[in-house]
């Protein structure tokens, strides 16, 4: 594991012992969720080269899976987390069926339309989903007598961090495996890859499904943690915020979007708390995204790599 990741993980592991107020911890928990969303999107967008604009639908699937399972069906909240991963994978399988045969802009249209269909489904099936109002008072996480909300969200912090760590190891392992390499091969030269035995359809379906599992689990965690499920998660705001994290962080790097998720999330939260900046913050993110794409299309991760490369050369 590279030292930057190890250092970051070390800091995050001991952080709750120094940061004891529940609001800051709350922000970190949300940042972990965004980091999971952004880095997993990088798998389908950056590695597989699929312009998948339905990524947030996997997250929303997790949110509603947990809400319905825990509140309506009485499933233990802890169990809804893996369950959300499974239903999100299933959702990905459904959207993959048409996407595996399409290219470029058509993938954008179909995946975005898919997430809108999901939104309509949630709004129209209000007896199950609560419609536009969503669902509230979803059972919270608790093991025996221990409530995860206790001690200023101490437990929730580590569950969210645990999910992010698992997700990151999973993504790094996957992208360094032959499967990950086959995605790069297909992305960069579909004809050559096909001529060397790589199935385009199979790789695309697998990439979409693989990129949906952790966002689904993060969605379930999100619902259990906030104890609400709202159709707002499928809005354009979430989508564009997470997209900016992937692009600014640097596609096909996994760690880039994770670092960018932290940077952008805390930046927007700070701006949201600054008077006069509340409405302005998304414009700032958009401008940052345009600047990065214009002057450093590889994103922040590539800038760091170039810097390191030069440093090594001098030594």
């Amino acid at each position: 594991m590279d030292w930057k990741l190890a250092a970051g993980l070390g800091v995050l592991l001991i952080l709750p012992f120094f940061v004891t107020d529940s609001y800051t911890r709350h922000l970190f928990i949300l940042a972990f969720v965004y980091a999971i969303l952004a880095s997993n999107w990088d798998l389908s967008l950056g590695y597989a080269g699929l312009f998948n604009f339905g990524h947030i639908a996997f997250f929303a699937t997790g949110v509603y899976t947990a809400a319905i399972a825990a509140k309506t069906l009485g499933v233990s909240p802890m169990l809804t987390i893996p369950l959300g991963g499974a239903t999100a994978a299933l959702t990905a399988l459904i959207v993959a069926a048409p996407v595996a045969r399409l290219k470029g802009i058509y993938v954008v249209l179909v995946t975005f339309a898919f997430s809108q269909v999901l939104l309509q489904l949630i709004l129209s099936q209000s007896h199950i989903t609560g419609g536009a109002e969503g669902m509230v008072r979803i059972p919270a996480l608790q093991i025996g007598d221990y409530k995860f909300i206790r001690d200023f969200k101490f437990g929730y912090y580590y569950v969210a961090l645990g999910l992010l760590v698992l997700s990151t190891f999973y993504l790094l392992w996957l992208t360094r495996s032959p499967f990950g390499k086959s995605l790069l091969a297909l992305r960069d030269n579909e004809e050559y890859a096909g001529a060397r035995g790589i199935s385009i359809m199979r790789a695309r379906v697998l990439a979409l499904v693989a990129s949906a599992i952790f966002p689904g689990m993060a969605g379930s965690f999100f619902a259990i943690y906030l104890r609400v499920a709202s159709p707002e998660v499928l809005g354009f705001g979430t989508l564009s915020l997470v997209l900016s994290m992937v692009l600014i962080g640097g596609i096909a790097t996994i760690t880039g979007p994770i670092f960018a998720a932290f940077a952008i999330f805390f930046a927007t939260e700070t701006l949201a708390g600054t008077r006069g900046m509340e409405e302005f913050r998304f414009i700032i993110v958009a401008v940052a995204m345009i600047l990065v794409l214009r002057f450093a299309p590889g994103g922040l991760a590539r800038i760091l790599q170039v810097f390191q490369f030069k440093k090594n050369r001098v030594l």
Partner: protein
Amino acid sequence: MPVLELRHVTKRFGGLTAVDDVTFGVEEGELLGIAGPNGSGKSTLFNVVTGIPFGASSGEILFDGKPITRMVSHRIARLGLARTFQKDAEYPDLTAKETIALAAIYGRGLNRRAAAEAAETQLEAAGIGCARAGMLTTALSVYERKQLMIASALVMQPKVLMLDEPASGLTRPEIAALNAHLVKINKGGVTILLIEHVLSLLLSLAERLIVLNQGAVLAEGDPQEVIRDERVIEAYLGGRSA
């Protein structure tokens, strides 16, 4: 029985017939040359046979006696029909070794370790040293890239290898080395179909030559006789002056 057989294969692009009713067979172990002026449909013929990126408009293609006319490209490759591309094909983010190992894993079903070993063997045969094997393919020389494309095909242990202008852009000594390499591959039991513009290479290697013109087979037979055929000479000269 021919290992590869084309029956009345035709490919149309709108009004243009790029491959026009082509019929021929390739015997096992043969080295068949394919020539023809620019735009005569040679590359399109390879594309149609391998399903990349399109299949035939009509006609039938048999590999090992089984129809592959409508088969997807990765299946054709796994059956043992491998090809290279006229323009350089590579994966910019992969190393030479990864490129070959990937073909061994997906094209031949080897596990990771066996694929790494097979890749090393192929790299050695291709004359790409250890230090260069770990470099990104975009950092390799033209000759190395051409060799890499052939190596990534050979690692799948194909029955038939289809080469689309492997000598283009190479220097004379490199062409000589390629010549020797192809003889070795063919002696090793791999049937070869060779499209080539470098006529000397084609004439030194091919046991039989097919000349295409405007998508159709113009002449076929002993290479030395075929290139003296008046229709062939005219097609080449006509193609050049046009």
